[in-house]
């Protein structure tokens, strides 16, 4: 890392109707550094990145690239100046190969591509930066982590000197995340700069050279990573200290009363393969059951079958000893199952709809919200105002489309609706993903508070720490089976890690 400045943004202001997303942000990126961008949900990180990569145009402020003042009017302009962004939602063509996707959209004057040449170049890049991916593979065959590598390759292929990664690890398994960090360091050594956005302070400490913290659209400060700690960063971000110790339960779980009983449930996935094999388990009143496992081992199907979105091929599910009509979301909702799905923007929310409509998405049929099949618009608005306030959703008003909220605030809308539904069972898939440390703390407290009130919680997460600090009991899933079932207190991380990876357990359950 040198002290040479690759990018300098000063006094950046970006206003949206009703909000000032960036309110005079200063950011300086040196050549060859990994620079972390930190801040609460809605602090303006994505907006700032979008300005730098040419998606948005700043209302005020100056962007200098390698000492020259620049103004980008499109991502292509930015890329030509050496700045590329990897978005959280990938923009790849599933039926094309890796190499084809890498050259796609690059208009250098030629209509045809030389496949071998491109594949060789892609291969070379992927070797150099430890981005293991087969150039001839097709996108749909790749895991999420591999797809992200393709996105990075795409940007590198076009010679980007500065890479922006917006919450790249949110979609990665811990192992994939580690390999991403190796890539980022390799890029730094070559003099390329990386802007790394994450809410995970541990990652920021591990991978970055310097950190800039934003709060409320302003720069709070830039610090050297070596001279700070997660605790300091957290208090810089939210303006108070945050701690993640095990949350204490007011009321212990009552495992004698069963709120959810799943018996011999088998399910096929979207491609028709059996992805759950005769799963059985129960959740007691006020019990938090954590589901640990590497993504793609049947967790999503499990959540979907319980909440009635997926029709099982066999099995029974009952809530409070009453058998549930399977594959009927409406039945699941009315019997008190709340569900925070993994895919928020498309499944959990209607992204084009307003905050208030989304908050009414599950209870618009109730008497409070509609009468004689007519919607009570005022009731919808009042409900939204209350929830927006109670769950600290940052939005200009309740009629703003959810699609325009920041990532973390999207999640808060979803959580607000599901938590407030007074459920008897709450299924939460990675509920804290994309949230800032302050919000994570709040969500954890709410989960525990819900359990204290008697809600049975099924907490699906890849974050073992989260499960260990919240759950009463842990189920480990591997290849569509529950391979271990153990109490959380005194649980052996090592053992869980191993069973998650599929190694034989002597006491596999069922």
């Amino acid at each position, binding site marked *: 890392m040198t002290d040479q400045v690759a990018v300098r943004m000063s006094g950046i202001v970006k206003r*949206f109707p009703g909000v000032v997303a960036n309110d005079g942000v200063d950011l300086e990126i040196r050549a060859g550094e990994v620079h972390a961008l930190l801040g609460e949900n809605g602090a303006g990180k994505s907006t700032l990145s*979008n300005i730098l990569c040419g*998606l*948005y145009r700043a209302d005020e402020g100056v962007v200098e*690239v390698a000492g*020259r*003042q*620049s103004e*980008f*009017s*499109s991502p292509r*302009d930015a890329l*030509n*100046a050496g700045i590329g962004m990897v978005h959280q939602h990938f923009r790849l063509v599933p039926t094309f190969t890796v190499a084809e996707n890498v050259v796609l959209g690059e*208009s250098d*004057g030629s*209509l045809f591509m030389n496949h071998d040449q491109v594949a060789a170049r892609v291969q070379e890049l992927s070797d150099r930066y430890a981005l293991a991916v087969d150039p001839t593979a097709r996108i749909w065959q790749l895991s999420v982590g591999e797809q992200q590598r393709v996105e990075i390759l795409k940007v590198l292929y076009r010679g980007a000197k500065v890479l922006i990664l917006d919450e790249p690890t949110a979609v990665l398994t811990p192992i994939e995340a580690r390999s991403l960090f190796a890539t980022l360091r390799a890029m730094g050594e070559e003099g390329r700069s990386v802007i790394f956005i994450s809410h995970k302070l541990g990652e920021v400490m591990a991978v970055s050279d310097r950190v800039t913290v934003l709060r409320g659209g302003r720069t709070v400060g830039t610090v050297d990573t070596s001279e700070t700690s997660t605790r300091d960063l957290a208090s810089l971000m939210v303006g108070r200290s945050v701690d993640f110790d095990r949350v204490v339960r007011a009321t212990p779980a009552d495992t004698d009363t069963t709120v959810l009983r799943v018996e011999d449930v088998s399910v096929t996935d979207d491609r028709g393969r059996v992805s759950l094999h005769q799963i059985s388990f129960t959740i007691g009143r006020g019990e938090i059951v954590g589901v640990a496992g590497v993504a793609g081992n049947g967790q999503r199907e499990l959540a979907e079958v319980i*909440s*009635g*979105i997926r029709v099982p091929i066999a099995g029974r599910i009952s809530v409070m000893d009453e058998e549930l009509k399977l594959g*009927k*979301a*409406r*039945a*699941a*909702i*009315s019997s008190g199952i709340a*569900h925070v*799905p993994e*895919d928020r923007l*498309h*499944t*959990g*929310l*209607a*992204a*084009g*709809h307003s905050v208030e*409509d989304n908050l*009414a*998405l*599950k209870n*618009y*049929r109730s008497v409070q919200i*509609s009468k004689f*099949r*007519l*919607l009570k*618009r005022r009731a919808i608005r009042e409900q939204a105002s209350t929830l927006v306030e109670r769950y600290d959703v940052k939005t200009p008003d309740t009629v703003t489309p959810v699609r325009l909220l920041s990532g973390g605030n999207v999640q808060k809308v979803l959580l607000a609706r599901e938590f407030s539904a007074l459920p008897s069972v709450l299924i939460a898939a990675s509920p804290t993903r994309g949230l800032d440390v302050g919000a994570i703390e709040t969500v954890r407290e709410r989960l525990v508070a819900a359990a204290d009130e008697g809600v049975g919680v099924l907490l699906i997460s890849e974050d073992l720490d989260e499960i260990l600090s919240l759950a009463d009991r842990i189920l480990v899933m591997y290849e569509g089976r529950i391979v271990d079932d153990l109490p959380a207190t005194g649980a052996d991380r090592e053992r869980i890690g191993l069973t998650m990876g599929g190694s034989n357990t002597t006491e596999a359950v069922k």
Partner: protein
Amino acid sequence: MRSPLRLERRLEQPKRLNWVIPLISLVAALILGAIVLWVTGKNPFEVYQRIFERGFAGRRVFSDSLVSATPLAFTGLCAAVAFRMGLINVGGEGQLYMGSLAATWVGITFDNIPTGLMIVLMAVAGMSCGGLYAGIVGLLRARFGTNEIITSLMMNYLAAILLTYLVYNSFSYWRDPVSGNFPSPRAITQRAEWNTFAIFEIGLPIAFLMAIAMGFIIWFIYKRTRFGFEVGVIADSPKAARYAGIRTSSTIVLVMGLSGAMAGLGGAADVGNFRRYMDPKGLELSGYGYTGIVVAALARLNPIASVFVALLMGGLNNAGYSLRGPDFPSGLVGTLQGLILFSAVAGEILIKYRVKSNSRPSEAVAA
């Protein structure tokens, strides 16, 4: 391959574009049309003046435009209702035929009931028949995932064949029994003729008032009812709808039914207010169903706007007819109408994208 211009998706869509762009589209259409006219040796101003005079200016022409607009208002509503949920119902044509069929039957059969009741009966019959006909398309889509564009289009042909058969190739109830070897359709009884009110000497067909009412009703359904809420969510994200326990299949059938009912009412209005009989040839020539799609598109799927866009289209149609003559080929009229459609579609693109120049990298970075 480098083109000098390219399209870029807008991330921010300013609200005012919603009315600015349609306005620009209209002006663009007029300018493009003027160029075409000028090239073909006509005086654009004169032609535009004629269009205005024969389409809108004056009580007589305006009354005529209302007549032409009425069926279009209904087929426009038909398209808007379905398109709002992302259901591409192009079967307004056939659904209108079926409405005409049912309403004619009522109009012939009941010959001694008061006109008011008659109007209601004919309207209900037309709506039901058109709605059921479209409902089949919805059912196929909901049950088997059949593409509604194809099925609704096929059912247009089916309806056309059926009507032609009933009037010309059989001795059916709809054929005039005294027409003998020269088959002609059978007229409804005199009592079954719908009222046209005279207001300031402008003939206002009762059916046009119904269209306005329907525009407001549909707007209300979509904005304020649970059903409308569900339709909106399905259109936005089918996955979220499923997750929220919305019954997508039955909603599809209902929306198709409602859509078809609008076209069916258009068919009933066509019989009751104007033609007085089921006229396969005349209907086919008019192509109300297809024009309705254009109407809905121009109205940006707003049901209330659809009715008024239909009025504009009705006027333009009439003006088009009267322009035609030895010095003004019908192809040119078609071209002018095509230009309007083209500009509307281009405007739609401009709301979603913005046009950028494809400047060279060096220029882009320059300070």
